[in-house]
């Protein structure tokens, strides 16, 4: 008996749809999380990270993680 016979007999075809739906749910959760209004200030800070490194020897006090 080959692996493919076992897999064929196991009737796993429906799991692909299940995975698809789980994917959709996970993606939906992420979209909601990203759009949460509470994150605006945090995003503002994060979006400035690339612009931070032009003052190489000027130390900055850390602003901390909470916005």
């Amino acid at each position: 008996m080959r692996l493919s016979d076992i897999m064929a007999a196991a009737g796993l075809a429906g799991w692909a749809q299940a995975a698809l739906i789980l994917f959709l749910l996970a993606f939906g959760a992420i979209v909601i999380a990203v759009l949460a209004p509470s994150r605006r200030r945090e995003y503002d800070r994060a979006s400035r990270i690339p612009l931070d490194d032009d003052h190489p020897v000027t130390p900055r006090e850390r602003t901390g993680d909470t916005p």
Partner: protein
Amino acid sequence: MNPHLETFSYDDAIVRKFMLATFVWGLVGMLVGLLIALQLANPAFNLDIAWLSFGRLRPLHTNAVIFAFAGNAFFTGAYYSTQRLLKARMYSDRLSAFHFWGWQLIIVAAALTLPLGFTQAKEYAELEWPIDIAIAVVWVAFAVNFFGTIARRRERHLYVTLWFYIASIVTVAVLHIFNNLSIPAGWFKSYSLYAGVQDAFMQWWYGHNAVAFFLTTPFLGLMYYFLPKAANRPVFSYRLSILHFWSLVFLYIWAGPHHLHYTALPEWASTLGMLFSVMLWMPSWGGMINGLLTLRGAWRKVAEDPVLKFFVVAVTAYGMSTFEGPMLSVKSVNALAHYTDWIIAHVHTGALGWNGLLTFGMVYWLLPRLYQTRLHSVRLAEVHFWLATLGILLYVTAIYSAGLTQGLMWRAFDETGRLQYPDFVETVLRLLPMYWLRVIGGSLYILGMLIFGYNILMTWRSRPATLAEPTVQAPRLVPLAAPVPALAPARSLWGRFADAAWHRTWERLPVTFTVMVTVAVLVASLFEIIPTFLIRSNVPTIASVQPYTPLELAGRDLYIREGCFNCHSQMIRPLRHETERYGEYSKPGESVYDHPFLWGSRRIGPDLAREGGRFPDLWHVRHLEDPRAITPNSIMPAYPWMLTADLDFDGIQRRVDAMAMLGVPYGDALTRAPALAREQARILAASIEAQGGPPGLETKEIVAMVAYLQRLGTDIRRIAPAPATAPAGAP
């Protein structure tokens, strides 16, 4: 003063190394591209030299521009931006050096082995197994170095650029390993673990995602760093960039089957690929708009700064090619575009426009910073920009017209219901003016590249005697003693969810984050791929399909060596104009012994899936020796060396043994493959001589090649009661 403040420096020497490699390999890859463009416009440019013929150089061109040019460009930007975004030097200078030199050695190995004909015959995965192992090792070194730097970072939040890098590094590793699994039959020969439909599925899962995770996500990472830097303002919407990221990770991995519409792939897989491709339109355009709107209020700068000009056109090209990609994945559009030059135009919009221009813009921005001087000439950079843009326009306009022309000619029927252009070469002749136009467009792009090189050289020459190593101070990252306090007391389960603390936590935990991305990619891949691999009903077996004889197998390996699959497909789609032109459409069960599959992706010449028995043996000998002696206007390279080179009969046993290990039922060939091959070669050579051909071919490579070509697509005819006679005068 912060007690945790640390002083450290960035490693810019490695960035300079990768930057120069980007230019050198870019120029080499583009020059090879120019040569093969000339070969298509006029076959005399093949020069009748084996290692310069189109079939061997085309993979060299694609590998050089993807892995050498775009690869080194990604590493240049990644080493520069990663250190700065994380406020940390690279984890290990030794690993950086190992990565750099290892990658360049791999490129040299590719440049040597591909012209010699060592190839796995899978697009963008042509390199043979020892080089594949080297790639895996170097890639792991890069990953260790990259994640090591993350572990030592001094900036808690991982900026979105780094997310794109993480997804690229992880996914490329997975793709590379699974698509290259094979059984070696010698140092530079191997057979794919998969066959036929499964191999095709695996290959285009790889091929599509190589475009996604080698040419798209790394460059999006670069865009989200260098575009704000050059415009000196933050990205238009950080929120949109995160959505862009997750949508790509969730969608891209499912889209691969759109490369196999109307082939012997199961229809459900093909439809799934199409749906996810169409959905990709949204995040791609979201990303493009995000990039362009970053310049809001700064458009005046675009007029003055060549760097921003390059970026604007690059991002626009990203938008154009990602609009076109989903459109091409729609089955009815694909029926017209597949196998034509349309696809070539599509990829060049992406490669020359998006990857090329983004790289140029990035390097022009980096040059003065890395060499601590001024850019030699802003005006020359402007000239480069206009030459490149004009070159792209000429190139794609010509090749879009070529693709549409050929696609429409293939499917044209006259009023009597017969093919309007039954002679394939007619459809090729019509393209030659456009092929010359492409040569001009490509040359302009390369001219821009030379000016770019001059600018790099002159900027390098004006550098200070010693380059200072930038010193930076940043506070050490203290471990979070307590979890982040909730922003506001959540009122309900929904409220807590919507506060999204969980997503915020992920973003600070790179290991968890990486695991999540990997899981998303793996789960999608597995659920798409496993059914095709393991459910038998997807590939119905055909009793009359038998393994290739030892001689035919040797011939197939010559077909692979010469890269015939670059121009000839072996997959007749169930479309009326195809069955009229080539015969019965291809069935999944016909390629169950094809390790690797050779369905092809482009028809510069006609399909060969039913080539067996179409022409006499001698016709093939004469045609391979000099195609234009048979078809006056053919653009096929000549293969005269096949008539003089001796076939390695003794090596055939090793090949048969490797195939047997893959489960191909070889019967008594397992013990006496060379003898069987010699016997078949003797009979075939006698038949060629009897038809008036040259004597003494029974020991030459040509007999194996002819034996293979005469076998193609004949197995299913054996059960047909009366085999159809070969249509006379067909191309």
